């Protein structure tokens, strides 16, 4: 069973509460994304799980696998970071759907496509944070997003350092996007700073025992 740094594990109830925030967030994000690309965007019911940080690269094909990462810092009543990870393939098809262009450019992440992905990460993160904020009454403020396409390990080790290495376990919310009927898989990884997760769970009414 997944445990956080102090050896605590999340109960079914706690996972449910965090997933519910994910649900509401996904709904908000779908509306925002639809408006942005003028297409029907659907987001599946997310899966939430607590996961060892060192296992996160396995979600996207290992530490050497090329991925797109959108990274934001969170401040406010609680602090932490959020990373949207997309496998390269998923990133390309999502970007292609959002910014339709020449077929020849299909395998290229143009500046416009990168910017679209960055914005997607921003919208998804903000939507999840808003939902979490509504449910907890806490205020979260996301930073401007950073964007990189590189090896999963390289992207994560940067995030790790930025986190002051306080989190051994992270919260992963897995989300499927449906854009105009095409399915794309994304992973929203939340890195709560020390104390942040218990504060959120307290407010959600499902505190650690």
């Amino acid at each position, binding site marked *: 069973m997944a445990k956080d740094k102090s050896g605590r594990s999340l109960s079914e109830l706690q996972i449910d509460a965090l997933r519910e925030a994910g649900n509401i967030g996904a709904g908000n994000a779908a509306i925002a994304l639809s408006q942005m690309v003028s297409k029907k965007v659907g987001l599946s019911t997310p899966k939430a799980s607590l996961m060892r940080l*060192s296992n996160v*690269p396995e979600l996207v094909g*290992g*530490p*050497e696998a*090329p991925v797109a*990462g959108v*990274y*934001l*810092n969170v*401040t406010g009543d609680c602090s932490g970071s959020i990373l949207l990870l997309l496998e390269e393939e998923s990133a390309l098809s999502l970007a292609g759907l959002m910014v339709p262009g020449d077929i020849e450019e299909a395998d290229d992440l143009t500046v416009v496509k990168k910017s679209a992905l960055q914005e997607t990460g921003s919208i998804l993160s903000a939507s999840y944070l808003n939902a979490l904020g509504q449910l907890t009454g806490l205020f979260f403020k996301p*930073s*401007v*997003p*950073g*964007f*990189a*396409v*590189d*090896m*999963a*390990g*390289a*992207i*994560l*080790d*940067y995030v*790790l*350092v*930025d986190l*002051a*290495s306080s989190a051994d376990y992270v919260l992963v919310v897995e989300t499927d996007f449906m854009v105009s009927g095409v399915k794309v898989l994304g992973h929203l990884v939340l890195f709560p700073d020390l104390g942040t997760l218990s504060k959120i769970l307290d407010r959600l009414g499902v505190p650690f025992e």
Partner: protein
Amino acid sequence: MSDLVNVGVADLKVSDNSDTLVSYGLGSCVAVAIFDPVKKVGGLAHVMLPESRGKETAAAPGKFADTAVPHLVQELVRLGARPKGLKCKLVGGAQMFEIPGSRNKQAGLACGPSANIGARNVEAVKQALEELKVPIVGEETGGNHGRTVRFDTSSGVIDITSIYFGQSAL
């Protein structure tokens, strides 16, 4: 028999058995490879942060530049390396993201480029090497791309792979 040995984040491994030590997907982390080409012993540390400030050093000496370098040298000498025959190669220390106003508490920056962490890691490793008089004979650091490092401890050759620049030898 030589093997492929994984050196994860904050890890440190040495070998006198011609093993190849590998660190996958280095971002702002620095791979510190120290070896004695005559005695054919070598070690690799996957350094994550510049300074230990007295924390966690016993559990993971490879995590911090200021503890990884002396620990690596000590382990290599224990395996028969000559302290004066040691050489070092450095790879990594990239800046993966640029976020305006990012905090990076560990780096001690209230604001500004959190970015600096890769460069600061490299700087801290160099300082530690200087103190122990270990010369740097190869370096591929900085930039904003990830790297995988395969360090052949018997030859001292490092094979670097990156998504953007392919493969190269150092």
